[in-house]
Structures are given as C-alpha cells and as structure tokens.
C-alpha cells in the first residue's frame, strides 16, 4: 500500500471536516486506476459509500459497487492537518 502526504490546498474543493475525517483514518482518500481511461483518479470512501472526485477534490458522483471495480492501493493524508498520536507509543503508566 503506498501512502502519500499532500497539502490540504492540493484539493481545495474538499471541505475541512472531510479532510479531518480522512486524517483520523475514519474515511479513506485514495487513488485508483480509472477502468475507462487508465488514469488514476481520486476517490473518497465514507462509512457506506464511495465517491469519485475530480482533481481539485470536487465530488463528481457516487460509485455503484457493481458498476466499477476499484482497487485501493494508494492512500492520501493531509500533511498540514492534525493526525492522531500513536497510542502504542504513548506512556500510559
């Protein structure tokens, strides 16, 4: 799995709350090769839906799972937005 850090300004049309969800690891921002054009596009996976985004992060449409096969192999986080601390390395006692 490839991980990428990008500035939040790279995808200006994504709302800040969505970016926070992504950085918490709740929702997934990822790229996948577009089956129709062989270019990689941004997708957003929420609890129950997958949305295709344009190159500025604007929501294009909701993906129907049966219509598109989307493999998740590149995940994105925002380098200038808070991410959770490491619990396994936090001294708790």
């Amino acid at each position: 799995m490839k991980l990428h850090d990008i500035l939040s300004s790279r995808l200006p049309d994504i709302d800040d709350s969505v970016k926070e969800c992504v950085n918490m690891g709740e929702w997934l921002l990822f790229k996948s090769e577009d089956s129709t054009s062989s270019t990689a596009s941004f997708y957003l996976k929420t609890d129950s839906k997958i949305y295709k985004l344009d190159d500025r992060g604007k929501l294009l449409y909701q993906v129907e799972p049966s219509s598109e096969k989307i493999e998740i192999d590149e995940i994105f986080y925002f380098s200038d937005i808070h991410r959770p601390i490491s619990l396994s390395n936090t001294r708790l006692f």
Partner: protein
Amino acid sequence: MSLIGGNTKWVLFLSAANEPETRHITDLAFGILCLEKAGVSISDIEIYVDGSDRASIENFLKSGTASQLNLKESKDFFADQTVNKHENIVMFVTGHGGPLGIDAAPPVTPHALLNCLKSSPNLKHAVVYLGQCYAGVFNYIGAGSKKKDDGEADPEIIFIGATNLHESLSLHTTEAFLSGPVSWHANIFLLFSFKWLSSPVDIDGDGKFTIMDSYKFAGVCSNGANKNMKTNALIGSSDLQAKFVAAKQAFDANQNPSTDLALQAAHKNYSMSASLLYVHQECWILNAIPSQRIEAI
C-alpha cells in the same frame, strides 16, 4: 514452553456477514507487523479475512509485511482446524460482535469456536484474544482442559475478551507500518496485545513473559488510553459541535451533494467524539491459571 519458540499457529481472524471494515483489516495488518517483529515466521501465521475485494484487502495487510501472504476466508479456519498439526494456537479476532457471537454468515457462536478448538487434533493449548463488541458472550463456557472418553486431556483453552457485555472500544491512532505512518480507528485492546508481543513487559514480576502479562498489559493500557481519550473528547466537543451546526446551516441553505458530504463529515467527527464518552470497556480472562504459566516469549 514458549509460544513463539514452540509449535504454534498464529491466527488473525476477521469474519464478516457482509464486507469487512478497512479499520478491522488494518488491526490485523498491525498484528502481522508486531508478530514478525516478535520473531514469528510468516509461515506460522494464518490470515482468515472475509470480503469480496481480495486485492484491496491484501493491499491493506501488506502495509504490515513484506512477506508473501496466503489469504483465506473465515470458513477455512474451521476446515483447517480439522487437520490441525500444531500443539498451540494463538488467535486474534477483530471485526464486529453481537449477542449471538462474532459477525459472520452465520455468526460464530461461543460453542462453535470452543468445539472447533476442543476437537482440533494434536492441539494442547489455545489462547484466543477476542477484540469484538460483546466479547463477554464468550465468557463462562467450558474452556478448561478435561479428560475425554479415551482418558486423554482435551486442549486447554484461554479466552481473553477486550470487553464484557459492552461495545468494544476503538480509538484513533497513527502507527508506523512498513509503508509509512497509518492512521485508523484501532481496536485498542488488540493494539496493545500485539504491542506487548513485539515489546513484552513482565507485569507481575515473575521473571517470565506470560499470557497473563499480555492480558494485564493490554487491559491497563486500554483503560489508560480510554480515560485520556474521553477527557480529550469532552474538551473538544464544543468545537466539534460548532462545526456540525455550521455544516447543518450550510446544507439547509444550499442542499447539494458537496454540502451534504460536509455535513456527514462534521456529524461523523462530532458523534464519534461524543460516543466515546458513553462506551465502557472492561476486559476479562477465562481460564486464568494456565495463562500464568504459558510463556509467550
């Protein structure tokens, strides 16, 4: 007798009636990372994960290992156990749970798992870490070793539950995987159980790294993290509430897919934080006496 040095099968188990959540797959990826760091060979690790997108599941798991993976489904675990050749099994269960057992089609009931382990040929010891919600439904069953009809002892089973008859806690964390830092909503009891294996602590000072040490370590750390996160959740809740209210007003003023998505995200952040304040987690261990002498390392 040490589990890591002995004839042990290490099982990472994620069953699902529908599709598994990526956070649960990431729990197991962290597990592979810690097990290999602890010296467990990938050939002794069996991974059983349900779900239709096998390629993405494997990609998530590969963030925790450079080794070749042989991914199976949850039903294969029960088939594999009928021809078991290992003396010991250590099993980690993540995913969803309910009053009827571990989420699967059909659910894995306490007696289905117990009977599977008890009837596994060659098996002497089994330790099962149950991370799912309502793990307590697996408590108070006949796990201890007993004489069979032929006079031989059946396997000694130890069940360890992340929580009793409550939902199980997941907290946001960022951990260093082989691919880089990964953030996810992690099952904290399993997180600390895996962490203990890779960096063992002799909690009770008997000079050994036993399963009981892993239980106490994971329990103390989970409870400590829980208390800290609840405190932070309360402190941050007013800010998240303000963002949620603003997102609601923006959606009401201009209803479109983008404002709807922003509202969903604001609600997600706010409700996740609020729900933390109401989840209680208390771990348990069934068949504790053998766990005091079974050494992991």
